[in-house]
């Protein structure tokens, strides 16, 4: 009788060992998650607040930029979080993230736009471009990204929102065309998104906002 029975018993022991390990691991992970979740959420909110603060001047809002978030579905069917800067009950500016495929993966930018449709500021939030070439889109490394300030979809005209190599208005960097091309395309897309939804974004706030 013994052959298959003892091998069955062995398998049972292994299963118990692995099962026990899995349960202990799950308990440990659940505990760690419980301990760190609040802290992580707070750190992420601070990060978001900091990057929003870079594209919307403090003089344009008297409420937290995180307080008036609006979720709007874009043309591709993804929900975009639009953060509204509110001053004296009126929306003075909005900021949201735009993304475009760069040379190595997605480039994410945060774009701040004023009521009049002019760009207040653009910052690179995340990218994976080549160090030394494509990473000039970081404000810390080069001021290239600041040259979009004050521009809008009419200035330059929409068909000029390209890098010079493609017949547009914007400088590429030496040795890297794909990265600036992606950034220009992302900003243009962001301006179009603003144009399509500006009524919703800039609609007056409800007069009584309860905290």
């Amino acid at each position, binding site marked *: 009788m013994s052959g298959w029975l003892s091998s069955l018993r062995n398998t049972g022991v292994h299963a118990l*060992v*692995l099962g026990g390990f899995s349960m202990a691991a799950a308990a*440990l992970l659940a505990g*760690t998650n419980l301990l760190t979740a609040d*802290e992580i959420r707070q*750190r992420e909110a601070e990060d978001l607040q900091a990057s929003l603060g870079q594209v919307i001047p403090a003089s344009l809002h008297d409420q937290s930029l995180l307080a008036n978030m609006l979720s709007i579905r874009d043309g591709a069917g993804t929900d975009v979080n639009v953060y509204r800067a509110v001053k004296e009950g009126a929306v003075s500016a909005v900021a949201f993230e735009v993304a475009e495929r760069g040379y190595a993966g997605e480039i994410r930018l945060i774009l701040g736009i004023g009521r009049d449709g002019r760009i207040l500021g653009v910052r690179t939030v995340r990218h994976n471009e080549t*160090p030394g070439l494509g990473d000039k889109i970081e404000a810390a490394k080069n001021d290239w990204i600041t040259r979009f300030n004050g521009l809008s979809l009419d200035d330059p005209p929409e068909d000029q929102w390209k890098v010079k190599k493609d017949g547009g208005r914007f400088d590429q960097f030496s040795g890297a065309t794909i990265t600036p091309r992606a950034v220009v395309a992302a900003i243009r897309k962001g301006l179009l998104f603003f144009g399509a939804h500006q009524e919703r974004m800039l609609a007056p706030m409800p007069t009584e906002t309860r905290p």
Partner: protein
Amino acid sequence: MNTDARSLVRAGLWDNNAVFGQMLSLCPTMALTTSATNGFGMGMATLAVLTVSNLLVATLRGVITAEVRIPAYVLIIATVVTVVDLSINAWMHELYKVLGLFLPLIVVNCLILGRAESFASKVSVWPALVDGLAMGVGFTLALTVIGAVREVIGSGTLFADASLLFGRAFEVIELTLFSDYPGTLMAILPPGGFLAVGFLLAGKRLIDGRLQSPESAPAAAPACHSV
């Protein structure tokens, strides 16, 4: 197997160094040594995971049956990495922004599974702890040195952004060696990583050869170390 603390530390730091002795973990080594600061940070995170995983594997070696040891080790390592990942995200957020992308990759760092399988599973808790610390410190030193070489050649700085990682007090170690340095892109890109590791490895072999036979210097080819 030699398990006294002295020889374990010697093995971890020099003879059997993770990068320059065992040639393990080359993937994170190439990816994270674009600057001395990044190399050091990744080394410290690996050190923490390796030490805890070695400790757990040695403690539980009586419970883990031989047939299921590999999945059990992987489970232990993955759990430890996740705990470290969440903790760094919560309490050392600046460090997380630099290393965040690479921390989960420690799970597949063969150094850690290698130490669990070839060492920690066969010894008691104390030598496993010493081995984890020694291997981890050796890995950190290797990554910092490679990062320093690539950073100096590539960007002309040393320990740039160290204060972002460790706090304001560390601004003093941020050095700009050559101002107006145009930068050598290749040193920052992966080929520069391979070149730096290659030259440093050759240097270590040269020293090893000198140490082995001081009178007939480079005659004896240094032995290849294995576990």
